[in-house]
């Protein structure tokens, strides 16, 4: 056994510890994305562990306040100048600096404009769009789908993440294909897997799934779709139906 307590595994900085919410002092809004129930993945009458009533909210790292540190402030200042508005009031909802990564939460109708500035301004110059993907947070009402853009500035050797949240009822985001042509397939993939509609995309069709496939597989409410495996009278259910730790 190691006697070096390295930490990091058990005490998430901004999420629940021992059933209580710990809000970092500098946080403005806590982005609760999930509520975890119980302890051992069994729900209803089958749970005899005594932990069935346990409820713990799961929150993503909260928005940061200035100074964000290092070049993060330069990027934020330059963007404020170009957009002519302060962070939090207009196109950029909030800024999260977490684990040495900068995340800008952008309003969906302004994403193309923000990308255009990020690409074209010499002080920013994020010339490569690494990729776009989605994340589904079914418990974050009104912001169920997040489209996540990863941009890379080769000139300044920086990386930045843009996050756009849209509600399930109206999953529309402005397409950035006109700014980053490489976004073409990435947006198609995000549409295919999450059903996020990118308005203005030249041909938003399914890319990985067959054209006639029903549903969007990476959504959390879409089942994994495995079949029970039976051998010698014993049946092993597919992974999403097995008991697991929650």
């Amino acid at each position: 056994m190691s006697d070096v307590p390295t930490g990091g595994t058990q005490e998430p900085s901004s999420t629940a510890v021992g059933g209580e919410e710990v809000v970092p002092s500098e946080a403005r809004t806590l982005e609760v994305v999930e509520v975890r129930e119980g302890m051992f993945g069994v729900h209803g009458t089958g749970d005899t562990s005594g932990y069935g009533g346990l409820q713990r909210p799961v929150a993503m790292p909260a928005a940061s306040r200035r100074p964000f540190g290092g070049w993060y402030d330069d990027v934020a200042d330059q963007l404020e100048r170009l957009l002519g508005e302060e962070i939090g009031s207009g196109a950029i909802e909030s800024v999260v600096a977490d684990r040495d990564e900068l995340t800008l939460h952008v309003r969906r109708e302004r994403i193309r404009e923000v990308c255009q500035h990020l690409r074209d301004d010499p002080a920013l110059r994020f010339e490569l769009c690494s990729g776009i993907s989605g994340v589904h947070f079914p418990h974050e009402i009104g912001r169920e789908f997040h489209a996540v853009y990863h941009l890379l500035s080769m000139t300044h050797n920086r990386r930045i993440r843009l996050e756009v949240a849209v509600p399930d009822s109206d999953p529309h985001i402005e397409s950035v294909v006109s700014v980053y042509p490489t976004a073409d397939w990435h947006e198609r993939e995000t549409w295919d897997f999450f059903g996020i509609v990118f308005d203005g995309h030249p041909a938003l069709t399914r890319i990985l799934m067959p054209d006639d496939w029903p549903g969007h597989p990476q959504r959390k409410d879409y089942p994994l779709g495995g079949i029970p495996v039976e051998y010698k009278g014993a049946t092993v259910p597919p992974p999403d139906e097995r008991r697991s730790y929650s």
Partner: protein
Amino acid sequence: MGLEEKLPSGVLLTTVEGLAGYFRKASFWPATFGLACCAIEMMEFGAPKYDSSRFGMEVFRASPRQADLMIVAGRVSQKMAPVLRQIYDQMANPKYVLAMGVCASSGGMFNNYAIVQGVDHIVPVDMYLPGCPPRPEMLIDAIMKLHDKIQHTKLGAHRAAEIASDEKVALEAVPTSAMKGLLR
């Protein structure tokens, strides 16, 4: 009949079936049906170290019309399944299918929405080869076993009788769902 005694020494006698089986197995051309990881091991099987030309199989045919064996090497997705079936239908008889790797045999570790849980849902499989991916040696072993099967395949009326008896045996066999007991 006495014919055998009149032959000069050194002439081997065999049946037409044996001869046909011998020729079939000795020029047994696989179709290229590489899908995923197993396809690389299948190519390795054709490359110098494992050298499939030792078994007359170095000609991987791209055209299914010229192929005798379809090695389904890798995971078959729902999108690929109709393509696979079409390739199989285009192959000329006698044709054989080898499900290479667990994904092709049973879906393997990818028990999910995207993967066909065993290629035997789409085409009849003659040989299952486990492994993820199986080594080229294992592929050689599977192909040797398939060669043996082909060598002993019958012709004409005998073949029809063989199919009938095989089917009878298969119908009487205990289905895997009814097999109980220790997991081994």
